């Protein structure tokens, strides 16, 4: 079991784009040679900003909901596992549905492990975290953008940050095991375009959108 008090935190503010996480992930014993992490470069022309993308381990994973083969399982301690070899039909539903863009189905990704195409994703280094170690990526990350520890430790070491684990995607609210750190003093509310308008916009254009109350 992954100890309950140990949590995963991501702070993209700290990321330096070094790919230590990506390179270390493929060194984990249970998925040798395959990295379950990717690093997004946001817009290199305008910024050096990068974001490490690991599985958020949702409470009610969308990937599992949409899987027609029931191949994606969540352990009792909240870790969403890679698709089961015996069940995965490589349909890519999970790839399309995941709101965080985590699962990948690049041809051959799973081939070195399973011998055939298989959806593989971050399992929070279950072989390590279930025996009290940290996940490989959060151990090596030289900027601390990926952090694994207790909430108390995080709060003590990162007083300027605040963890969030609830995200809204249109009508869907997703709660995750993994936390994203945001600046402590930033507002929680999402920006609304209409709040920033000086006057009512052209009604013809506005008609294109249906603004829903959350």
């Amino acid at each position, binding site marked *: 079991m992954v100890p309950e008090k140990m949590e995963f935190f991501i702070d993209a*503010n*700290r*990321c*330096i*784009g*070094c*790919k*230590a996480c*990506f*390179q*270390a992930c*493929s*060194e984990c*014993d*249970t998925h*040798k*040679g395959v990295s379950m992490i990717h690093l997004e470069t946001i817009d*290199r*022309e*305008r*910024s*050096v*900003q*990068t974001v490490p993308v690991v599985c958020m381990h949702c409470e009610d994973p969308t990937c599992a909901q949409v899987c027609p083969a029931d191949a994606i399982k969540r352990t009792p301690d909240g870790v969403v596992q890679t698709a089961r070899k015996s069940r995965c039909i490589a349909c890519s539903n999970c790839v399309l549905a995941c709101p965080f863009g985590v699962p990948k189905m690049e041809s051959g990704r799973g081939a*070195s492990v399973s011998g055939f195409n298989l959806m593989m994703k971050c399992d929070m280094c279950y072989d390590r975290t279930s025996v009290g170690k*940290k996940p*490989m990526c959060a*151990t*090596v*990350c*030289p*900027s*601390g953008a990926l952090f694994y520890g207790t909430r108390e430790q995080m709060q003590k*070491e*990162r*007083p*300027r*940050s605040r963890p969030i684990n609830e995200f809204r995607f249109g009508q869907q609210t997703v709660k995750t095991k993994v936390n994203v750190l945001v600046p402590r003093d930033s507002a929680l509310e999402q920006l609304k375009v209409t709040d920033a308008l000086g006057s009512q916009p052209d009604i013809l254009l506005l008609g294109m959108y249906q603004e829903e109350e959350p």
Partner: protein
Amino acid sequence: MSKLPVAPEQLEAHYGPHLQFPGGKHLQSGLEIDRLVKTHCCFCGQQCGIQLKVAHQQVVGFEPWEDFPFNRGMLCPKGIKRYLQGGHPDRLLTALQRDPAAAGGFRPLEYPQAIAQTAAAIAKIQEQHGFAAFGVLSGASLTSEKAYLMGKFARVCLRTPYIDYNGRLCMVSAGAANKKAFGVDRGGNPWSDILGAELIWISGANVAECAPITTHYVWQAREQGARVVVVDPRVTPLARTCDLFLPIKPGRDVALFNGILHLMIEKDWLDHAFIEKYTVGFEKLAESVREWTPRRTAQVCGLNQKLVEQAAEWWGTASTSFLMHARGIEHHSHGVQNVLGAINIVLASGRIGRENCGYSTITGQANGQGGREHGQKCDQLPGGRDISNPEHRAHVAGIWGVAPDDLPQAGVDAYELFRKIDQGEIKGLLTLCFNPKVSLPDSEFVARCLDKLEFYAAIDFFLNETAQHADIVLPGSLQEEDEGVVCSAEGRVIRIRKAIDCPGEARQDWRIIQDLAAALKRPQGFEFQHPGQIFDELRRASQGGVVDYSGITYEKIEASYGVFWPCPSEEHPGTPRLFEPDSWNVVARGQGPFYFPDGKARFQVADYSPPQEEVDEEYPLILTTGRVISQFLSGTQTRRIGPLAEMHPAPWLEVHPQLAAKLGLKAGDTALVESRRSSIELTTKVVNTIRPDTVFVPYHWAGRESINRLTIAAQDPISKIPEYKACAVRVRRLEHGS
């Protein structure tokens, strides 16, 4: 003649760089591991602790070493994938002899025969032309034991003054300035002092890519409220979220520091008590910065004046601070002046020598610090001793069992050594751990010099581009195949552990050197059986010097995660932080904390001069060069590690959108970059993270991809560091490539 035996393509086909990816044993889940070896990364000066996984006499992977206090398990991608050098197809498993008739240009040679032939060639050159006709080039990625032995080998066995090392391209400007100002060349503080600093100032250091682990220290300080100031022509990954960014014009750092000091004086942001008690020379310096008004400073540095004033205010009013710099300010024809400028604002603030108040260069190579301490520099003897000082000579000669007068005098820097080859003065060369054909500036000149050598022997584990010119290649060792110590950027002496034996006919480098000494019939002083014996002699040779290792033992290092020098006795705990107010050192002997007889630091007037090659109508752009995260130095190792090479497979040209528009360049276009020395074709990256008057190209690649064919061999008059960070170029778009 040491010309390439066959075409470069044929050499590459046989000796690489080929890419090694994880496969076989690396991918076997549940592979039984014979042992985990606690050691350090083979790449940069951070020297992260790492555990190497060994199975079947091969390093097959790694495990984080979370107990090592400096990096606590953290690593960058280079450290993570270093194990792929093990069992690499390009690994040299035998000695080689140049043979233009052989397919790859070399044929295997029995090791004893290679040693005999090399010794005979050295003897022949020295008999005909004198001892000084043979030169040695060494490196700062070697353990201190090897670095020490190389200096001794050149002076005692070869009796040549001509030895220098690749740290000449790296840390020498910082070293020279530190000695002038503090009397000692070592980073002043352990990195833990970064954590509590209120202001962190980083000049000319791409911390995120070249010293990645330091990022965590900076971010942790910021979590506690620290402000971060970054001075760099490019928005580096660490600069992206800093509190104040000063995109300085390359080569103007000393002007900025002088301007900061000007404002510190004007606003009285000075620590008068510290200046009075612990320094000399402030009045003269104050006079010299009078002309550096914010307006002039901003103008020379190409910065908004408000930024200069803001930086000065933050620096001037902070109560604790840590100032760091790296090659960005050091790689200049006035690199020493740039560093002195930095030291002046540190001393004027009085924020050094106490907790959370620090200053350091960020050393680049694995043993960048240790490699410059024990005698492979052209003017230096072990213990940081000076080869022109009679007392120093006498001490070291005594340890070495030779007459002081038999020790050669100072030689010349690595670049000058090539000029001596060009002039025919030096006719033979031995290199170890140095790839000057890729790493020196104006490198086509270096290649022509290699061609002129009568005899050239190279020791390496892969056939690097310089070694391709060799008459004899001797198969050396990887870092994980030997024991020893290195000294990290912090000044912490740590243990490198042997994980496996050398494969094939390859030998530990120090054994090859000793075999050469024996074959030259001068084995005295080169009969060590183990690196520990070399270290014990190094300790004695360093005793009583500024860089005193005499109290450091292998056991002590292992018991306490490293020992900071100076450590003058076995009871001494080492010295993590230099310059503490009541500290004792061997030069001041209680007079004060700095390494001068009166114990006081020296303010030095730091003169501004522009880069040697200023832009003009013909060559209107500034070229600056640097590193990327996944490659290391001349790429001999990282260009062979598949996952690292894939991250950055080739160099590129970085231009600002404004400049790109003027040049008609778009992202992905092939650009021709020309300097007065050579030209290169590169793929364009358009990014607004660089000054519009400056273009950037990373330097890790060889041949047609090597930017050092374009860089200038201008050197600092004091440190002799080359000016990699600024020369003049022009750029134009090529239609569909060339």
